């Protein structure tokens, strides 16, 4: 079975390895330059000026080649599992159904269970290894940038815990790759046609990649909460909504944050704990009154900011939990797939 699996998977494996090799060459060629620049700016030896130096480093990179490569690395990390699902997973068994060759394969002296488990095991392992190598290479390359980001800009969208970066670092991509691969295989087994199975794989995997960070990840570990007095002078958002019918409302968002944390929600609450939504006082609605008068009124309300967040130190526990979820999903799909093949009578 190992021979057959490898013989059929050969070209896909070589293509995947070639793409990995190209990425590795690009990263190896540019990585040392990035480290050199990091050292030149003086970040490794800074004491009190670290934040400023880090800001300088980031600003310098942002619109240059390194910045583009950083974004490309994120895109590659999200694309890789999807491509594995589409091009390694979906055709794996769907193509056997399309050409009828499964009828030959299933009548050799190897049971269907062994046949499907060998395919799932060997290629699934390859998918995980490929994603792991890619994650390792890109994480290594991006480490100076990420160090500078965490030194400098606490509110950056590119901190390790932020939804954009989290899924492209650490071990989560391994879970995605395993899941996407088996999702593709299962779609192929159920649909029995390669191209529709590819489309379904992409749609479902993309759905998971959107729903996971928005709905599931914030609650994988119960998030922490913190409050601070609301300061209108540093507010990020100050909005009065008045559309003529009904009382006017007011939306305030403060800038309170926790360094390195992933802020899941940021609410402004009244002393009684209710989410503040106005109504604004007359001074705020009166066009002739000064902004300062309105600000004074807001400050007199004793509003507080309540933030819900995942602290910086939870990167690895969250990675572990999310990877675990995807591996369990992959195992479930693998079981479904094997059961379908055993049961499937063609």
């Amino acid at each position, binding site marked *: 079975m190992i021979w057959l699996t490898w013989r059929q998977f050969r070209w896909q494996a070589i293509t995947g390895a070639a793409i990995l090799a190209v990425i590795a060459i690009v990263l190896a060629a540019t990585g040392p330059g990035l480290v050199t620049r990091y050292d030149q700016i003086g970040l490794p030896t800074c004491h009190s000026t670290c934040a400023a130096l880090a800001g300088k480093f980031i600003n310098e990179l942002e619109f240059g080649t390194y910045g583009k490569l950083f974004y490309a690395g994120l895109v590659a990390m999200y694309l890789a599992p999807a491509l594995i699902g589409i091009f390694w997973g979906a055709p794996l068994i769907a193509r056997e159904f399309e050409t*009828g060759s499964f009828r030959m394969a299933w009548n050799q002296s190897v049971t269907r269970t062994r046949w499907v488990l060998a395919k799932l095991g060997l290629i699934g392992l390859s998918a995980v290894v490929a994603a792991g190598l890619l994650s390792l290479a890109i994480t290594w390359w991006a480490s100076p940038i990420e160090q500078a980001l965490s030194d400098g800009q606490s509110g950056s969208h590119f901190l390790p815990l932020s939804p954009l970066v989290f899924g492209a670092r650490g071990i989560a991509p391994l879970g995605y790759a395993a899941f996407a691969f088996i999702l593709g295989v299962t779609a192929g087994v159920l649909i029995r046609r390669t191209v529709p199975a590819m489309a379904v794989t992409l749609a479902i995997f993309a759905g998971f990649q959107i729903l996971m960070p928005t709905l599931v990840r914030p609650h994988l570990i119960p998030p922490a909460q913190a409050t601070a007095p609301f300061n209108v002078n540093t507010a990020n958002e100050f909005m009065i909504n008045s559309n003529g019918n009904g009382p006017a409302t007011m939306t305030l968002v403060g800038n309170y944050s926790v360094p390195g944390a992933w802020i899941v929600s940021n609410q402004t609450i009244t002393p009684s704990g209710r989410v503040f939504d106005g109504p604004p006082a007359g001074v705020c609605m009166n066009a002739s009154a000064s902004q300062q008068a309105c600000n004074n009124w807001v400050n007199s309300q004793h509003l507080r900011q309540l933030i819900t967040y995942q602290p910086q130190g939870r990167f690895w526990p969250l990675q572990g939990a999310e990877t675990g979820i995807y591996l369990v999903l992959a195992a479930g799909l693998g079981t479904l797939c094997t059961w379908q093949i055993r049961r499937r009578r063609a």
Partner: protein
Amino acid sequence: MTAAIEASGLGKRYGRRWALSDCTLSIPVGRVVGLVGPNGAGKTTLLSLATGMLAPTTGSIRVLGGTPGSGPKQLARVGYVAQDTPVYPGLSVADHLSFGAHMNPGWDAELAARRISQLGLVPGQKAGTLSGGQRAQLALTLAIAKRPDLLILDEPIASLDPLARREFLQVLMETTAESQVSVIMSSHLVADLERVADYLVVLMSSRVQLAGDVDQLLASHQLLTGARRDPGSLPPSQHVVTASHTDRQSTILVRSDVPVLDPSWSVSQIDLEDLVLAYMGQARTEPAGPAAPAATKILEEKR
């Protein structure tokens, strides 16, 4: 002795349509069995049940004493060439032989290599570029070289040209001559099977209409021609299969284990094709449905 295929009340339903119903059969080992019937009669269904590719809806089937497709041992004992002789289009002929060797502990590499060179197949050629006849030969080679006890061939020559048909059957006959393999091969044409089969199963409208040793079937059927008379007046030892009448003359096909001695009949033998067609014609006029007494018409071979 264990039967090659032993079916009892076997039936397979797809949705509301029965592809095979109430099939009771016992095919002995060591025979070359022709499974004949029109398209859609249930031939592929029966063979798929025998390989374990399908599970029965009703009844049971045993192949060489085991449950079809139940494990590596059972799989190793049965060689199967599926309809349209599927192969891996992207793999070469040589790859197919490696495939067979890796997938079958009983693989006879010497036999496979000899067959491929006799057939003139180029080892490096991709199977997807083979002609229909070559592909069928490759599929047959794979099935033979695993050294099965039973070879199941589902319309292997239906799509082949006459020359390729002849070559395929030639290979099949050589194989049965040099090993003890039992063969069951389906076709919708009796002529395809006449040269190789010594046992016949006729399927029609999802039912077995006739099953038995070819020579015995031919010996026990007589075509009676004579002055017009009612088929019901024949003695009970003579079962009427079909009867046709003109104003003055009756032509009746009877099955009888004893010779027909009535001098008012002109008695003649019938060939295999006409025999099969007679049973198919008879099936067509019968009402369909599980209650139809088709099973009573099955000729049981005396053992």
